Every structure is written in structure tokens, then in C-alpha cells.
């Protein structure tokens, strides 16, 4: 199976190149995909933690999210 490609257009000459990625680039691609997936999980966990903390704070204050928005807006 051929490696994935990238496309490059030279705007001065009009040449269009479809360049097959090297094995090293394919390996880099896989590594970057793993990093991106890990970062995505980290971001989602941080967002969930923040949402939980916000809900707990509102509960302690006895306010709804709409009331908090009204107060801060």
C-alpha cells in the first residue's frame, strides 16, 4: 500500500506536485497523531474538571448558572 501524499502547488510555475510521504514522515505522522490524541484527552479532562468545580461553586452559593451569568454580566 502506498504511503499517504501531500499536495504542493507552485504559484509561480503553476506546477502541481503530489508528493508521497517518506517512511520517516509516515512514522512522524503516527507519532504526532498519538500526541494529538493525548492532548485532546488532556483538554477534555481539564474542561470536565472546570465544569465540575463550577457546578460545585454554584451549589455552595445556592445559585443557578443563569443567575450567576446575570450577576457577572
Amino acid at each position: 500500500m502506498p504511503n499517504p501524499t501531500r499536495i504542493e502547488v507552485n504559484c509561480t510555475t503553476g506546477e502541481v506536485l503530489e508528493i508521497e510521504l517518506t517512511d520517516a514522515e509516515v512514522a512522524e505522522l503516527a507519532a504526532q497523531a498519538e500526541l494529538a490524541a493525548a492532548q485532546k484527552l488532556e483538554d477534555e479532562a481539564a474542561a470536565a474538571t472546570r465544569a465540575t468545580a463550577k457546578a460545585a461553586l454554584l451549589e455552595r452559593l445556592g445559585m443557578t448558572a443563569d443567575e450567576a451569568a446575570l450577576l457577572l454580566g
Partner: protein
Amino acid sequence: MPTYTQIGSAITVGSGGSSSVEFTSIPSTYTDLVVVGSSRSSTGDVSLLYRLNATTSGYTGKYLGGTGSAAESGNLTTLTAGAGGTWGRVGNAGNDSSSATSSTFSNWQMYLPNYANSSNKSLSFDSVVENNATTAYAEFDALLWSNTAAITSIGFAISGSGSFVQYSTFYLYGVSNA
């Protein structure tokens, strides 16, 4: 009256997909640049990424978007791409994912004013995700590339392990102020 001139060749992604696309050797003879795209990701990764002059730093921005039922906003910096390395983040989303309605594509436009001058470059971007379902995404973004070099190349990729699927298209135009 401003005129639009297509620069280089249009890019249409072939059957094997493409991890990235790039317009290179862009002449400095126009006032502004516009890139018009229609794209879809091969995976669930939907963030459109960009590189100017193949540079991996200096990218910041803000997005304002909506899902059809909720509004979203936030900051944009950089992300890693399946295409390799660090890229500037064009938007929170920007691409149809592989789970969007079959054969639909997001449509978007990037405007790059005064691309050849010696100041930092402020850009704008807008996109709509096509999806025949309850949730679809539209957004507007204000982007800044903190670099004073004239822009001579523009590349695009997708975050994570995504690549552009067949029939994704990209057109570059130069805008001249007559």
C-alpha cells in the same frame, strides 16, 4: 474596483486523500489574498490548521462559533497535525468530520489582507460545517501571525490523525485594488 485573480492551480484532493496541501512561491504583486476551501476530514479530527511560510510559531487567535443549539468561544494557538509538527490553529472546528453526513464538506474562506507588507499579519476566517443532522457548526475567527515577513506560502492540514479526503478543494486568489 477590486479584482480577484486565481493564483496557481486549484487543488482537488485525489482518491488517496492528502495529509496536507500547500500553495508555494506566491507572488507579492497583489494587495490581499483569499483562500476558499471545501474540505472533509478522514477521521473525527475537525480542527483546520495552517502554516504561513512553513513556520511553526507565532500563531494566535480567537473564535466565536455555534453548534445550532449553543454558542462557543475561545482562544486559538497551535496544534500538532497528522501531517507532522506544529501548525497554527485556524479554528475550533472548520472541517466536516468522517461522521458527518456522507459526501458533505465544510465550506470556508480565509482572508489575508496586506500579505506582503512588513507588519504582523492579521487574518480572518469563517466556516460552516455541512451536516444534515441537529448539530452543525459555524464559526468566525480572528487570527494573528506575529511575523513581519511577506507571506509566500500557505499550507493547510487537519489536527490529530486527520487528512483531507478525496474531492476536498482549495483555491487561492489574489485581490488587487484598482
